[in-house]
């Protein structure tokens, strides 16, 4: 199984780094790419779905049932941006982890595909393949779904977004 990660285009790393982290490739994506919505808010998620986004990364991990229903109808992927979890600290981080866990479980219940990406703005916030899989398992997925979320789901997003390096 080949594993992929997605980072923001501001993230800089040497060419051998993705291999050391256990990834086949690490793709960089512009924050404003309309195929991958990065942000929060019900109205913005609905607008992104209307514009044909293939994936949504909800940065505050808040659950909006109407937005998620639209994501499910469009067959879009829910991205879990792990760097946003790592940026917070203390109690705020604990709350975000709880919200992320709830969001992931709800997505699986509704049949939404879930992907786990670092979406890091700098090398500091990147994660290895092992770390992404373990974080996914902590958020309530099985080993199999976690591996799928770091490999196939991420590849689908990149193929749709048509970006990379």
């Amino acid at each position, binding site marked *: 199984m080949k594993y992929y990660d997605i980072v923001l285009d501001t993230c800089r790393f040497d060419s051998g780094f993705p291999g*050391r*982290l*256990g990834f086949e490739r690490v793709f960089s994506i512009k924050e404003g790419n309309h195929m991958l919505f990065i942000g929060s808010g019900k109205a913005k998620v609905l607008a992104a779905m209307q514009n044909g986004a293939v994936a949504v990364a909800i940065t505050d991990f808040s659950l909006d049932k109407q937005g998620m229903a639209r994501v499910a109808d469009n067959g879009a992927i829910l991205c879990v941006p*792990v760097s946003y*979890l*790592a*940026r917070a600290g203390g109690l705020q*981080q604990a709350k975000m982890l709880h919200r992320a866990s709830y969001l992931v479980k709800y997505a699986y219940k509704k049949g939404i595909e879930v992907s786990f990406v670092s979406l890091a703005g700098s*090398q*500091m*916030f*990147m*994660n*290895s393949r*092992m*770390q992404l899989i*373990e*974080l996914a*398992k*902590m958020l309530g997925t099985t080993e199999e779904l976690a591996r799928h979320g770091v490999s196939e789901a991420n590849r689908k997003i990149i193929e749709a977004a048509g970006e990379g390096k």
Partner: protein
Amino acid sequence: MIRVKHRYLLVEATSSVQNEALLNELLNRIGTRYYAVNPRILNVRGSMVIRCSLDGLSELIVALSLIKSIGGKECAFYTIRSSGTIRALMSK
């Protein structure tokens, strides 16, 4: 006596940190389960290797993922691979 199974984790850090500072940070993150995870930092051929209990491997990896600074100094940890023996860990 029950033999506790261990796992060795090869870790790459963005900057050097004192072992005690890292263990303190892990204690803060893992909490009372720290004694079950039982992390020990080893230096094997210039690489950082952390030994932990088999049951605590997932907790240790998650805790390392979420550490982004230690004592106000920016530092990130990437877990490269894990193995049951140091020899297998370093030979892969």
